[in-house]
């Protein structure tokens, strides 16, 4: 047996070996010319791009390290809150509390008006064991770091406003494809572009639902008050970990800076990520009781291969297989559908004789509530359906609530976005919009119902 041999099936004839060999063992294309000349220096084996050169006949391929079994399947836990009781807080101040109560242990962010206060709240991570806070160089890297931390086993979050959400698009799509749980808070301000940075709007409804390129809906939650800011943030982390999807919390600037009393419970039901050893890492779960596949963290005995390319259930790239692409997008879409069934939101009861129904989300709900109250005093019967789950949209529930064919008015602070979601269920819905960078006042809604006029008067 020669002291040197070449694995022909691996060799690409690049000639790297010939260029380093001190004794001309190889021909220009890497064929063995003078194997007897080999001095066994090993340079060729080091330089060979394909590791095709074998210097020792006993070089058998070593087996890969075996995935050892480890503990830790997640699930539901009752978790003590850190600051139970009654507090007077703004939306931005609140969001950090449920995040920490839900077990968020990593925050990466970048300053932006009107979302920066969320970052100050998350500084509390520095006082928690294993908590990590970092201010990154931009929103792109903020979400990147969040995804990295989530894959290393932490619950992770970032917060931003419209321009920052725009920068995060590519990585939101990455989180969807790699099934990485993470929570993104978007405080909506008036746009487009820099727009009116300190003023409220609801222009990011569609951009949030369809955020990221490549056809995948997100879960989008929209609190209407400070109590919602607490409970829906807990819900956001639970949904994110359960379904392994990015979840976006949409609040407008009014909710972000409005101070209100909030009662924080003693305990919350919190879902922790499921991990079963030797399960598949991506795609539909093999365990029926579970909503998404098992995700081992980086650093475990079970090697995790994560890629934003289309991949199979072990994370191996399958970037030109048509079936795989269909299967991947299907399984992502199915998760969002299942999340809809899981959320099980109920519309408020509406009397059969109610002629008018207002549908709204975010801070508009508050103005509408006041308007409905005052209109009732004047004998006008108007009902209100607040939408807190923008995606998956509760279309069946809404359809049931509107069975008696009332006149539906969708009021929002943009050029008309929520209306498209409602019209998919109820095509006759009317759209009322205001895009002034100011709150929609109850007065205007009352005027509309009394005078049937929505023209803006200064």
């Amino acid at each position, binding site marked *: 047996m020669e002291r040197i041999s070449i694995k022909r099936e*691996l060799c*690409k*004839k*690049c*000639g*790297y070996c010939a*260029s*380093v060999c*001190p004794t001309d063992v190889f021909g220009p294309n890497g064929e063995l010319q003078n194997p007897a000349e080999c001095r*066994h220096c*090993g*340079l060729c*084996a*080091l*330089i060979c*791009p*394909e*590791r095709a050169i074998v*210097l*020792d006949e*006993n*070089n058998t*391929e*070593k087996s*890969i*390290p075996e995935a050892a079994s480890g503990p830790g399947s997640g699930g539901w836990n009752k978790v003590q809150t850190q600051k139970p009781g009654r507090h007077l807080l703004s939306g931005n101040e609140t969001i950090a509390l449920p995040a920490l109560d839900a077990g968020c*242990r*990593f925050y*990466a962010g970048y300053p932006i008006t009107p979302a920066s206060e969320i970052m100050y709240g998350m*500084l509390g991570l*520095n006082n928690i064991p294993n908590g990590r*806070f*970092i*201010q*990154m*160089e*931009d929103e*792109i*890297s903020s979400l*990147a*770091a969040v*995804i*990295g*931390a*989530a*894959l*290393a*086993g932490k619950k*992770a979050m970032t917060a931003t406003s419209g321009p920052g959400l725009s920068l995060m698009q*590519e*990585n939101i799509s990455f989180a969807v494809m790699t099934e990485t749980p993470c929570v993104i808070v978007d405080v909506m301000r008036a746009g487009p572009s820099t727009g009116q940075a300190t003023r409220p709007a609801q222009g990011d409804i569609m951009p949030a639902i369809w955020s990221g390129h490549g056809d995948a809906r997100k879960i989008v939650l929209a609190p209407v008050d400070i109590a919602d800011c607490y409970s829906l943030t807990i819900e956001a982390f639970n949904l994110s970990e359960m379904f392994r999807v990015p979840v976006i919390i949409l609040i407008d600037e009014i909710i972000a800076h409005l101070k209100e009393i909030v009662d924080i419970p003693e305990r919350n039901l919190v879902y922790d990520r499921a991990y079963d050893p030797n399960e598949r890492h991506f795609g539909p779960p093999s365990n029926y009781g579970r909503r998404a596949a098992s995700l081992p963290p*980086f*650093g475990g*005995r079970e*090697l995790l*291969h*994560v*890629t*934003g390319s289309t991949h199979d259930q072990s994370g191996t*790239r399958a970037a030109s297989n048509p079936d795989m692409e269909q299967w991947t997008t299907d399984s992502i879409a199915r998760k969002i559908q299942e999340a809809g069934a899981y959320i099980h939101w109920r519309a408020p009861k509406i009397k059969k004789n109610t002629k008018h129904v207002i549908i709204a989300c975010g801070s508009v709900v508050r103005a509408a509530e006041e308007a409905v109250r005052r209109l009732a005093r004047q004998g006008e019967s108007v009902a209100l359906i607040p939408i807190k789950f923008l995606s998956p949209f509760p279309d069946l529930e809404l359809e049931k609530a509107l069975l008696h064919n009332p006149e539906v008015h969708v009021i929002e602070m943009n050029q008309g976005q929520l209306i498209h979601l409602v019209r998919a269920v109820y095509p006759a819905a009317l759209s009322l919009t205001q895009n002034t960078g100011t709150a929609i006042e109850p007065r205007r809604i009352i005027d509309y119902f009394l005078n049937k006029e929505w023209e803006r008067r200064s």
Partner: protein
Amino acid sequence: MGETIMNKNDERSPERWIRPGQTDFCPGCGYGTILNYLARALEKTGADPSLTVAVGGIGCAAWIPDQYMQTHTLHTTHGRPIAFATGVKLAKPELNVLVISGDGDLATIGTSHLIHAARRDLDITVFCVNNFVYGMTGGQAGGTTPTGAVTSTSPAGHAEKPLDLISLVLAAGGRVRTEAEGGAEGLNASVESDMLIASGRFAAREIVLTRQPQRVISTCEKALAHQGFSFVELIAPCATHFNRKNRIYSVTDLKAYLNANYISASKATKTPLTDRAGKQLCGLFKSKEEYERLVGGAI
């Protein structure tokens, strides 16, 4: 040289870091060699594959970790692997986090993350594989394309000046702090202080196709062992898109090209500046001043 041959009785071998099979890299590409070097360097540091996360961006170089390394791997978006690695490292400081990606990825679209990771002195190792062009998309010019080089987007020769990544990293890099200082200043200090140990700066440039592969492996090993941010630029011109367009038709031509454009730091100290004008330095550099002195001027 006996150490390159695997010991029969040794259960552990560099091969355990690599997934079996042929790579998809073009004939003449040095990326497979880099995989080989990295496996050996990792093996020498005594690291554990299950405690190692290899992060790559988009491009041929990112395939080195993503497709072929037998560790935890994270194949991220274009230009952002360092940002992802920051999250992984902060979330689990005990992990051995390395970034392997290309020049277009790390030093053109993602330059800001490189600068800021160096500035933070985050304890990760970045291997920037420099092939001078965007190989995967058809050989367009990028931030590191040499002046005058013919590429798909500069058919008459590239007019711009390339970035010197070593000087960039050395200039941005490493708050040099002693352990005693602890570093309590700034918003992030309390978070990062446990992984910010005074380390000096670490930037190295090596050529992949060399007669001294042991030196490259040793540099990679030192980079991996370095506490704090370490950066290694590995020069491996794109065989398909750069070499052919620039009249490099064989490995012999390639070696001549590399010899004409690069000089090792040790050789440079013995060569007068005028005799090595226009040549880039290879070797390991630990301070901006040292690099400036060798280059012969402020960087």
